[in-house]
Protein backbone atom coordinates (compact mmCIF):
# COMPACT_ATOMS: atom_id res chain seq x y z
CA UNK A 1 0.00 0.00 0.00
CA UNK A 2 1.46 3.31 -0.99
CA UNK A 3 1.99 6.01 1.56
CA UNK A 4 -0.51 8.80 1.38
CA UNK A 5 1.15 11.86 2.84
CA UNK A 6 -1.86 14.06 2.30
CA UNK A 7 -3.52 12.15 5.08
CA UNK A 8 -0.89 13.40 7.48
CA UNK A 9 -1.91 16.89 6.54
CA UNK A 10 -5.54 15.98 6.70
CA UNK A 11 -5.16 14.41 10.10
CA UNK A 12 -3.51 17.53 11.40
CA UNK A 13 -5.97 19.74 9.68
CA UNK A 14 -9.24 18.14 10.59
CA UNK A 15 -9.44 20.68 13.37
CA UNK A 16 -11.21 18.82 16.07
CA UNK A 17 -13.22 16.50 13.90
CA UNK A 18 -11.10 13.75 15.42
CA UNK A 19 -11.32 14.73 19.06
CA UNK A 20 -13.67 14.42 22.00
CA UNK A 21 -13.74 17.94 23.32
CA UNK A 22 -17.23 18.37 24.72
CA UNK A 23 -18.69 16.53 27.72
CA UNK A 24 -21.38 13.89 27.28
CA UNK A 25 -23.06 15.12 30.44
CA UNK A 26 -22.57 18.06 32.71
CA UNK A 27 -20.46 17.48 35.83
CA UNK A 28 -21.50 18.35 39.40
CA UNK A 29 -21.13 21.95 40.57
CA UNK A 30 -17.58 22.74 41.64
CA UNK A 31 -16.04 19.64 40.09
CA UNK A 32 -13.13 19.95 37.67
CA UNK A 33 -11.94 17.27 35.29
CA UNK A 34 -8.77 17.32 33.27
CA UNK A 35 -9.21 15.79 29.84
CA UNK A 36 -6.92 14.30 27.21
CA UNK A 37 -8.36 13.36 23.84
CA UNK A 38 -6.89 11.68 20.77
CA UNK A 39 -8.45 10.54 17.52
CA UNK A 40 -7.70 9.67 13.96
CA UNK A 41 -9.51 8.98 10.70
CA UNK A 42 -10.42 5.40 9.91
CA UNK A 43 -8.45 5.79 6.67
CA UNK A 44 -5.26 5.36 8.64
CA UNK A 45 -4.66 1.97 7.01
CA UNK A 46 -3.64 3.89 3.91
CA UNK A 47 -0.59 5.43 5.40
CA UNK A 48 2.24 5.09 7.77
CA UNK A 49 3.02 7.80 10.22
CA UNK A 50 -0.45 9.18 10.77
CA UNK A 51 -0.55 12.07 13.21
CA UNK A 52 -3.43 11.60 15.68
CA UNK A 53 -5.38 14.67 16.66
CA UNK A 54 -4.66 15.40 20.31
CA UNK A 55 -6.22 17.91 22.66
CA UNK A 56 -5.68 18.63 26.36
CA UNK A 57 -8.04 20.65 28.51
CA UNK A 58 -10.41 20.82 31.42
CA UNK A 59 -14.13 21.06 32.19
CA UNK A 60 -15.65 22.59 35.30
CA UNK A 61 -19.14 22.40 36.75
CA UNK A 62 -20.58 25.88 37.32
CA UNK A 63 -23.84 24.41 38.51
CA UNK A 64 -25.08 20.84 38.40
CA UNK A 65 -26.73 21.68 35.08
CA UNK A 66 -24.05 23.86 33.48
CA UNK A 67 -20.46 22.97 32.68
CA UNK A 68 -17.80 25.03 30.96
CA UNK A 69 -14.58 23.82 29.36
CA UNK A 70 -11.51 24.76 27.42
CA UNK A 71 -8.93 22.80 25.42
CA UNK A 72 -5.62 23.38 23.78
CA UNK A 73 -5.21 21.54 20.47
CA UNK A 74 -1.76 19.98 20.50
CA UNK A 75 -1.52 18.48 17.01
CA UNK A 76 -1.78 21.76 15.05
CA UNK A 77 1.27 22.97 16.99
CA UNK A 78 3.31 20.52 14.91
CA UNK A 79 2.80 22.82 11.93
CA UNK A 80 3.06 26.04 13.93
CA UNK A 81 -0.67 26.59 14.34
CA UNK A 82 -2.14 27.60 17.68
CA UNK A 83 -5.50 25.94 18.33
CA UNK A 84 -7.85 26.23 21.28
CA UNK A 85 -11.52 25.96 22.08
CA UNK A 86 -13.95 27.03 24.75
CA UNK A 87 -17.25 25.35 25.38
CA UNK A 88 -20.34 25.39 27.55
CA UNK A 89 -22.81 22.56 28.10
CA UNK A 90 -26.26 22.66 29.67
CA UNK A 91 -28.47 19.80 30.78
CA UNK A 92 -31.84 20.19 29.09
CA UNK A 93 -33.55 17.07 30.45
CA UNK A 94 -32.34 14.73 33.18
CA UNK A 95 -32.49 10.97 32.62
CA UNK A 96 -35.70 9.48 33.92
CA UNK A 97 -36.55 5.80 33.48
CA UNK A 98 -36.01 4.93 29.82
CA UNK A 99 -35.91 8.58 28.77
CA UNK A 100 -32.36 9.67 27.99
CA UNK A 101 -30.64 12.66 29.40
CA UNK A 102 -30.43 15.48 26.86
CA UNK A 103 -27.46 17.83 26.93
CA UNK A 104 -26.95 20.83 24.67
CA UNK A 105 -23.52 22.33 24.18
CA UNK A 106 -21.86 25.10 22.25
CA UNK A 107 -18.22 25.42 21.37
CA UNK A 108 -16.00 27.89 19.58
CA UNK A 109 -12.70 26.60 18.25
CA UNK A 110 -10.06 29.11 17.28
CA UNK A 111 -6.91 28.56 15.21
CA UNK A 112 -4.21 30.97 14.15
CA UNK A 113 -1.05 30.37 12.16
CA UNK A 114 0.99 31.99 9.40
CA UNK A 115 -0.90 35.22 10.05
CA UNK A 116 -4.27 33.63 9.23
CA UNK A 117 -7.02 32.89 11.74
CA UNK A 118 -10.06 30.66 11.56
CA UNK A 119 -13.05 30.37 13.87
CA UNK A 120 -15.28 27.30 13.93
CA UNK A 121 -18.44 27.47 16.08
CA UNK A 122 -20.25 24.23 16.89
CA UNK A 123 -23.58 23.26 18.40
CA UNK A 124 -24.00 19.81 19.91
CA UNK A 125 -27.00 17.85 21.12
CA UNK A 126 -26.31 14.65 23.04
CA UNK A 127 -28.65 11.90 24.24
CA UNK A 128 -27.17 9.64 26.90
CA UNK A 129 -28.38 6.55 28.70
CA UNK A 130 -27.03 4.85 31.78
CA UNK A 131 -25.86 1.34 31.02
CA UNK A 132 -24.85 0.43 34.52
CA UNK A 133 -23.64 2.44 37.50
CA UNK A 134 -20.43 3.55 35.77
CA UNK A 135 -21.24 3.45 32.07
CA UNK A 136 -23.03 5.78 29.69
CA UNK A 137 -24.03 5.10 26.10
CA UNK A 138 -24.60 8.13 24.00
CA UNK A 139 -25.40 9.47 20.58
CA UNK A 140 -24.86 13.02 19.48
CA UNK A 141 -25.27 15.36 16.57
CA UNK A 142 -22.80 18.20 15.99
CA UNK A 143 -23.31 21.14 13.65
CA UNK A 144 -20.04 22.93 12.88
CA UNK A 145 -20.03 26.20 11.00
CA UNK A 146 -17.34 27.88 8.94
CA UNK A 147 -17.38 31.40 7.56
CA UNK A 148 -14.84 31.28 4.76
CA UNK A 149 -15.81 28.42 2.49
CA UNK A 150 -18.57 26.13 1.35
CA UNK A 151 -20.03 24.11 2.88
CA UNK A 152 -20.96 26.56 5.58
CA UNK A 153 -22.12 23.82 7.94
CA UNK A 154 -20.83 20.34 8.67
CA UNK A 155 -23.15 17.81 10.23
CA UNK A 156 -21.44 15.12 12.32
CA UNK A 157 -23.36 12.31 14.03
CA UNK A 158 -21.53 10.18 16.55
CA UNK A 159 -22.11 7.33 18.97
CA UNK A 160 -19.95 6.38 21.89
CA UNK A 161 -19.48 4.91 25.30
CA UNK A 162 -18.25 6.64 28.43
CA UNK A 163 -17.03 4.59 31.36
CA UNK A 164 -15.90 5.65 34.82
CA UNK A 165 -13.04 3.24 35.51
CA UNK A 166 -12.27 4.49 38.99
CA UNK A 167 -13.55 7.32 41.13
CA UNK A 168 -11.10 9.65 39.39
CA UNK A 169 -10.48 8.10 35.98
CA UNK A 170 -13.01 8.08 33.15
CA UNK A 171 -12.55 6.91 29.58
CA UNK A 172 -14.53 7.56 26.44
CA UNK A 173 -14.58 5.90 23.03
CA UNK A 174 -16.47 7.41 20.15
CA UNK A 175 -17.15 6.77 16.47
CA UNK A 176 -17.82 9.92 14.52
CA UNK A 177 -18.99 10.56 10.99
CA UNK A 178 -17.45 13.97 10.45
CA UNK A 179 -19.08 16.11 7.76
CA UNK A 180 -21.71 13.53 6.88
CA UNK A 181 -23.48 16.07 4.66
CA UNK A 182 -20.39 16.62 2.47
CA UNK A 183 -19.66 14.61 -0.68
CA UNK A 184 -16.17 13.12 -0.21
CA UNK A 185 -16.25 10.25 -2.69
CA UNK A 186 -13.24 11.82 -4.37
CA UNK A 187 -10.47 14.02 -3.08
CA UNK A 188 -7.30 13.43 -1.14
CA UNK A 189 -8.88 10.75 1.01
CA UNK A 190 -10.14 9.14 -2.21
CA UNK A 191 -13.29 8.46 -0.26
CA UNK A 192 -11.44 5.94 1.87
CA UNK A 193 -12.84 7.13 5.18
CA UNK A 194 -16.22 8.11 3.82
CA UNK A 195 -19.53 6.40 4.35
CA UNK A 196 -21.61 6.18 1.17
CA UNK A 197 -19.26 8.71 -0.38
CA UNK A 198 -19.90 11.28 2.31
CA UNK A 199 -17.91 12.70 5.20
CA UNK A 200 -14.99 11.03 6.93
CA UNK A 201 -15.29 8.52 9.73
CA UNK A 202 -13.02 8.69 12.71
CA UNK A 203 -12.49 6.89 15.98
CA UNK A 204 -11.77 9.11 18.96
CA UNK A 205 -10.77 8.31 22.48
CA UNK A 206 -10.70 10.43 25.59
CA UNK A 207 -9.42 10.22 29.14
CA UNK A 208 -10.79 12.41 31.93
CA UNK A 209 -9.26 12.79 35.39
CA UNK A 210 -11.48 14.03 38.17
CA UNK A 211 -9.55 16.71 40.08
Amino acid at each position, binding site marked *: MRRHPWL*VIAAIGSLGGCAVTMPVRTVPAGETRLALSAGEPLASHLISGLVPYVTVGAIHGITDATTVGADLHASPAAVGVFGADISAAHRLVAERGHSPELTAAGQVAFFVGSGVARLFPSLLLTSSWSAGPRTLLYGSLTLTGQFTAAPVALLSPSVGISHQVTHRLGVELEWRWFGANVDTHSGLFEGAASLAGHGAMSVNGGIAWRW
Partner: protein
Amino acid sequence: MALVIRRFRLVVLLVLTGSCKADSYLFQTDRVADYDPPAELSVPASDLVEVSFRAGADTLYGFYFHHTGTDGYPRTVLLSHGRNGNVARPPEWSRATAIYFGGFDVLAYDYRGYGRSTGTSVSEATIDSDATAALAYLQGTLGVPDSELILYGHSIGATPTLALAERVGGGSAVVLESAFTSAQEMARTATLVDAPVSWFLRGSFDNIDQLPRIHLPVLILHGTLDPEVPVSQAAELYARAGQPKYLKIFPRAAHDDISEQPDFADALYQLGLMTGVVHADSRRPTSGP
Protein backbone atom coordinates in the same frame (compact mmCIF):
# COMPACT_ATOMS: atom_id res chain seq x y z
CA MET B 1 22.75 13.54 26.25
CA ALA B 2 23.54 17.19 25.63
CA LEU B 3 23.24 16.57 21.90
CA VAL B 4 19.83 14.97 22.36
CA ILE B 5 18.66 17.95 24.39
CA ARG B 6 19.94 20.38 21.79
CA ARG B 7 18.15 18.43 19.01
CA PHE B 8 14.98 18.38 21.05
CA ARG B 9 15.22 22.11 21.55
CA LEU B 10 15.70 22.56 17.82
CA VAL B 11 12.59 20.51 17.05
CA VAL B 12 10.58 22.48 19.60
CA LEU B 13 11.88 25.74 18.14
CA LEU B 14 10.99 24.66 14.61
CA VAL B 15 7.51 23.70 15.67
CA LEU B 16 6.93 26.85 17.67
CA THR B 17 8.07 29.06 14.83
CA GLY B 18 5.92 27.24 12.34
CA SER B 19 8.91 26.05 10.35
CA CYS B 20 7.62 22.50 10.20
CA LYS B 21 5.71 22.11 6.94
CA ALA B 22 4.58 19.12 4.98
CA ASP B 23 5.80 20.08 1.48
CA SER B 24 8.36 17.32 1.28
CA TYR B 25 5.69 14.70 2.05
CA LEU B 26 4.08 15.52 -1.29
CA PHE B 27 6.81 13.93 -3.33
CA GLN B 28 6.69 10.14 -3.50
CA THR B 29 9.95 9.59 -5.29
CA ASP B 30 10.79 6.33 -7.02
CA ARG B 31 14.57 6.22 -7.30
CA VAL B 32 16.30 3.74 -9.58
CA ALA B 33 19.91 3.09 -10.51
CA ASP B 34 18.94 2.45 -14.12
CA TYR B 35 15.74 2.90 -16.04
CA ASP B 36 13.94 -0.23 -17.21
CA PRO B 37 11.01 0.88 -19.38
CA PRO B 38 8.19 -1.59 -20.07
CA ALA B 39 8.99 -3.61 -23.16
CA GLU B 40 5.43 -3.91 -24.43
CA LEU B 41 5.31 -0.23 -25.30
CA SER B 42 8.45 -0.27 -27.37
CA VAL B 43 9.55 2.82 -29.21
CA PRO B 44 11.98 2.33 -32.13
CA ALA B 45 15.52 2.55 -30.77
CA SER B 46 16.34 5.22 -33.31
CA ASP B 47 13.61 7.45 -31.90
CA LEU B 48 14.43 7.12 -28.20
CA VAL B 49 17.36 8.46 -26.26
CA GLU B 50 18.00 8.73 -22.55
CA VAL B 51 19.05 12.27 -21.72
CA SER B 52 20.51 14.13 -18.76
CA PHE B 53 20.99 17.77 -17.93
CA ARG B 54 21.87 19.95 -14.98
CA ALA B 55 19.46 21.61 -12.59
CA GLY B 56 21.57 23.62 -10.20
CA ALA B 57 23.84 21.21 -8.36
CA ASP B 58 21.79 18.19 -9.43
CA THR B 59 21.54 16.12 -12.58
CA LEU B 60 18.14 15.34 -14.01
CA TYR B 61 17.44 12.37 -16.26
CA GLY B 62 14.72 11.54 -18.71
CA PHE B 63 13.88 10.34 -22.20
CA TYR B 64 13.61 12.14 -25.48
CA PHE B 65 11.13 10.56 -27.89
CA HIS B 66 11.99 11.96 -31.29
CA HIS B 67 10.46 11.09 -34.65
CA THR B 68 13.54 10.71 -36.81
CA GLY B 69 11.45 9.86 -39.85
CA THR B 70 8.82 11.99 -41.53
CA ASP B 71 5.85 10.61 -39.60
CA GLY B 72 5.92 13.10 -36.71
CA TYR B 73 4.58 16.57 -36.23
CA PRO B 74 7.00 19.48 -35.75
CA ARG B 75 5.90 19.86 -32.15
CA THR B 76 7.64 18.76 -28.96
CA VAL B 77 5.86 18.04 -25.70
CA LEU B 78 7.67 18.90 -22.47
CA LEU B 79 6.09 16.42 -20.08
CA SER B 80 6.09 17.16 -16.32
CA HIS B 81 4.79 14.19 -14.39
CA GLY B 82 2.85 13.80 -11.13
CA ARG B 83 4.17 13.17 -7.65
CA ASN B 84 4.54 9.38 -7.91
CA GLY B 85 6.78 7.04 -9.87
CA ASN B 86 9.33 7.95 -12.51
CA VAL B 87 9.40 8.43 -16.27
CA ALA B 88 10.22 4.81 -17.06
CA ARG B 89 7.33 3.30 -15.11
CA PRO B 90 3.65 3.16 -15.97
CA PRO B 91 1.68 5.38 -16.07
CA GLU B 92 4.37 7.95 -16.89
CA TRP B 93 5.90 5.77 -19.60
CA SER B 94 2.47 4.95 -21.03
CA ARG B 95 1.63 8.64 -21.24
CA ALA B 96 4.89 9.57 -22.95
CA THR B 97 4.65 6.75 -25.49
CA ALA B 98 0.99 7.47 -26.22
CA ILE B 99 1.86 11.09 -27.00
CA TYR B 100 4.81 9.95 -29.11
CA PHE B 101 2.68 7.49 -31.07
CA GLY B 102 0.19 10.32 -31.50
CA GLY B 103 2.78 12.06 -33.62
CA PHE B 104 4.50 14.38 -31.18
CA ASP B 105 8.07 14.42 -29.96
CA VAL B 106 8.30 14.20 -26.16
CA LEU B 107 10.83 15.17 -23.51
CA ALA B 108 9.82 13.33 -20.33
CA TYR B 109 12.09 14.09 -17.40
CA ASP B 110 12.29 13.20 -13.74
CA TYR B 111 12.31 15.84 -11.02
CA ARG B 112 15.23 15.64 -8.63
CA GLY B 113 15.03 12.53 -6.48
CA TYR B 114 12.85 10.66 -9.01
CA GLY B 115 14.20 7.89 -11.25
CA ARG B 116 17.90 8.45 -11.86
CA SER B 117 17.76 12.16 -11.03
CA THR B 118 19.94 13.22 -8.14
CA GLY B 119 18.94 15.44 -5.24
CA THR B 120 15.60 15.70 -3.47
CA SER B 121 12.29 17.28 -4.41
CA VAL B 122 11.14 19.23 -1.42
CA SER B 123 8.83 21.98 -2.60
CA GLU B 124 6.91 23.68 -5.37
CA ALA B 125 10.04 25.75 -5.94
CA THR B 126 12.25 22.73 -6.64
CA ILE B 127 9.94 21.20 -9.25
CA ASP B 128 9.54 24.65 -10.85
CA SER B 129 13.30 24.88 -11.02
CA ASP B 130 13.54 21.39 -12.55
CA ALA B 131 10.95 22.23 -15.20
CA THR B 132 12.90 25.37 -16.03
CA ALA B 133 16.06 23.31 -16.45
CA ALA B 134 14.21 20.84 -18.70
CA LEU B 135 12.93 23.70 -20.84
CA ALA B 136 16.42 25.16 -21.14
CA TYR B 137 17.69 21.76 -22.27
CA LEU B 138 14.89 21.47 -24.79
CA GLN B 139 15.53 24.92 -26.21
CA GLY B 140 19.31 24.94 -25.97
CA THR B 141 20.63 21.43 -26.53
CA LEU B 142 17.74 19.99 -28.54
CA GLY B 143 17.09 23.24 -30.39
CA VAL B 144 13.31 23.27 -30.12
CA PRO B 145 11.95 26.76 -30.80
CA ASP B 146 9.22 28.22 -28.56
CA SER B 147 6.74 28.10 -31.42
CA GLU B 148 7.00 24.29 -31.52
CA LEU B 149 6.78 23.80 -27.80
CA ILE B 150 3.84 22.13 -26.02
CA LEU B 151 3.89 22.24 -22.22
CA TYR B 152 2.16 19.23 -20.68
CA GLY B 153 1.64 18.65 -16.95
CA HIS B 154 0.02 15.73 -15.19
CA SER B 155 -1.46 16.25 -11.71
CA ILE B 156 1.08 18.14 -9.60
CA GLY B 157 3.10 18.63 -12.80
CA ALA B 158 0.48 21.16 -13.90
CA THR B 159 1.97 23.71 -11.52
CA PRO B 160 5.48 23.91 -13.04
CA THR B 161 3.88 23.61 -16.48
CA LEU B 162 1.81 26.73 -15.92
CA ALA B 163 4.77 28.55 -14.41
CA LEU B 164 6.73 27.82 -17.60
CA ALA B 165 3.80 28.80 -19.81
CA GLU B 166 3.62 32.21 -18.18
CA ARG B 167 7.33 32.76 -18.72
CA VAL B 168 7.63 31.31 -22.23
CA GLY B 169 4.66 33.09 -23.75
CA GLY B 170 5.54 32.04 -27.27
CA GLY B 171 4.81 28.33 -26.89
CA SER B 172 2.34 26.40 -28.94
CA ALA B 173 -0.09 25.03 -26.32
CA VAL B 174 -0.55 23.94 -22.72
CA VAL B 175 -2.05 20.59 -21.69
CA LEU B 176 -3.23 19.94 -18.15
CA GLU B 177 -4.07 16.32 -17.34
CA SER B 178 -5.80 15.45 -14.04
CA ALA B 179 -4.84 18.85 -12.68
CA PHE B 180 -6.18 20.30 -9.45
CA THR B 181 -7.20 23.89 -8.92
CA SER B 182 -5.00 24.60 -5.91
CA ALA B 183 -3.44 22.96 -2.90
CA GLN B 184 -5.97 24.90 -0.83
CA GLU B 185 -8.84 23.20 -2.57
CA MET B 186 -7.20 19.78 -2.31
CA ALA B 187 -6.64 20.27 1.40
CA ARG B 188 -10.31 21.12 1.72
CA THR B 189 -11.33 17.85 0.06
CA ALA B 190 -9.46 16.07 2.84
CA THR B 191 -10.14 18.17 5.91
CA LEU B 192 -13.63 19.33 4.89
CA VAL B 193 -12.95 22.55 6.77
CA ASP B 194 -11.37 25.68 5.39
CA ALA B 195 -7.94 25.37 6.98
CA PRO B 196 -5.52 27.69 5.15
CA VAL B 197 -3.06 25.60 3.20
CA SER B 198 -0.31 27.96 4.34
CA TRP B 199 -0.59 26.21 7.69
CA PHE B 200 0.71 23.00 6.10
CA LEU B 201 2.66 23.93 2.98
CA ARG B 202 5.03 26.62 1.83
CA GLY B 203 3.89 26.19 -1.76
CA SER B 204 0.38 27.07 -2.88
CA PHE B 205 0.25 25.12 -6.18
CA ASP B 206 -2.27 27.73 -7.23
CA ASN B 207 -3.09 26.60 -10.76
CA ILE B 208 -6.44 28.32 -10.96
CA ASP B 209 -4.97 31.75 -10.28
CA GLN B 210 -2.12 31.08 -12.68
CA LEU B 211 -4.34 30.10 -15.61
CA PRO B 212 -5.73 33.56 -16.54
CA ARG B 213 -2.15 34.75 -17.00
CA ILE B 214 -1.50 32.13 -19.70
CA HIS B 215 -1.89 33.34 -23.27
CA LEU B 216 -1.59 29.99 -25.02
CA PRO B 217 -4.23 27.52 -26.18
CA VAL B 218 -5.16 25.32 -23.21
CA LEU B 219 -6.30 21.70 -23.40
CA ILE B 220 -7.67 20.26 -20.15
CA LEU B 221 -8.03 16.47 -19.76
CA HIS B 222 -9.73 14.83 -16.80
CA GLY B 223 -11.29 11.50 -15.82
CA THR B 224 -14.79 11.36 -14.41
CA LEU B 225 -13.68 8.56 -12.08
CA ASP B 226 -10.64 10.43 -10.74
CA PRO B 227 -10.60 9.50 -7.04
CA GLU B 228 -7.98 12.10 -6.08
CA VAL B 229 -8.93 15.24 -7.97
CA PRO B 230 -12.68 15.68 -8.40
CA VAL B 231 -13.67 16.25 -12.03
CA SER B 232 -15.42 19.44 -10.94
CA GLN B 233 -11.96 21.00 -10.55
CA ALA B 234 -11.33 20.49 -14.27
CA ALA B 235 -14.47 22.48 -15.01
CA GLU B 236 -13.25 25.25 -12.70
CA LEU B 237 -9.89 25.35 -14.44
CA TYR B 238 -11.59 25.42 -17.83
CA ALA B 239 -13.77 28.33 -16.75
CA ARG B 240 -10.71 30.38 -15.75
CA ALA B 241 -8.65 29.64 -18.87
CA GLY B 242 -8.57 32.14 -21.72
CA GLN B 243 -9.48 31.27 -25.30
CA PRO B 244 -8.75 29.14 -27.17
CA LYS B 245 -9.43 26.30 -24.75
CA TYR B 246 -10.81 22.80 -24.87
CA LEU B 247 -12.03 20.48 -22.13
CA LYS B 248 -12.01 16.73 -22.71
CA ILE B 249 -13.63 14.53 -20.08
CA PHE B 250 -12.91 10.79 -20.10
CA PRO B 251 -15.91 9.00 -18.57
CA ARG B 252 -14.00 5.81 -17.73
CA ALA B 253 -10.70 7.31 -16.65
CA ALA B 254 -9.32 7.76 -13.14
CA HIS B 255 -6.31 9.88 -12.12
CA ASP B 256 -3.43 8.21 -13.94
CA ASP B 257 -4.89 6.30 -16.87
CA ILE B 258 -6.20 8.92 -19.28
CA SER B 259 -3.50 8.13 -21.83
CA GLU B 260 -4.62 4.50 -21.78
CA GLN B 261 -8.17 5.40 -22.78
CA PRO B 262 -9.26 4.64 -26.37
CA ASP B 263 -10.38 8.24 -26.84
CA PHE B 264 -7.00 9.67 -25.80
CA ALA B 265 -6.37 9.74 -29.56
CA ASP B 266 -9.20 12.27 -29.80
CA ALA B 267 -7.42 14.46 -27.26
CA LEU B 268 -4.21 14.29 -29.26
CA TYR B 269 -6.13 15.09 -32.42
CA GLN B 270 -7.56 18.12 -30.64
CA LEU B 271 -4.03 19.07 -29.58
CA GLY B 272 -2.97 18.82 -33.20
CA LEU B 273 -5.81 21.11 -34.21
CA MET B 274 -4.98 23.62 -31.46
CA THR B 275 -1.33 23.71 -32.44
CA GLY B 276 -1.99 23.89 -36.14
CA VAL B 277 -0.27 20.67 -37.16
CA VAL B 278 -3.44 18.94 -38.26
CA HIS B 279 -6.54 20.28 -39.91
CA ALA B 280 -10.13 19.35 -39.36
CA ASP B 281 -10.31 17.31 -42.53
CA SER B 282 -7.10 15.32 -41.94
CA ARG B 283 -6.97 11.81 -40.55
CA ARG B 284 -6.68 11.33 -36.84
CA PRO B 285 -3.45 10.13 -35.30
CA THR B 286 -3.30 6.80 -33.56
CA SER B 287 -2.54 6.47 -29.88
CA GLY B 288 -0.69 3.16 -29.91
CA PRO B 289 2.23 1.42 -31.55
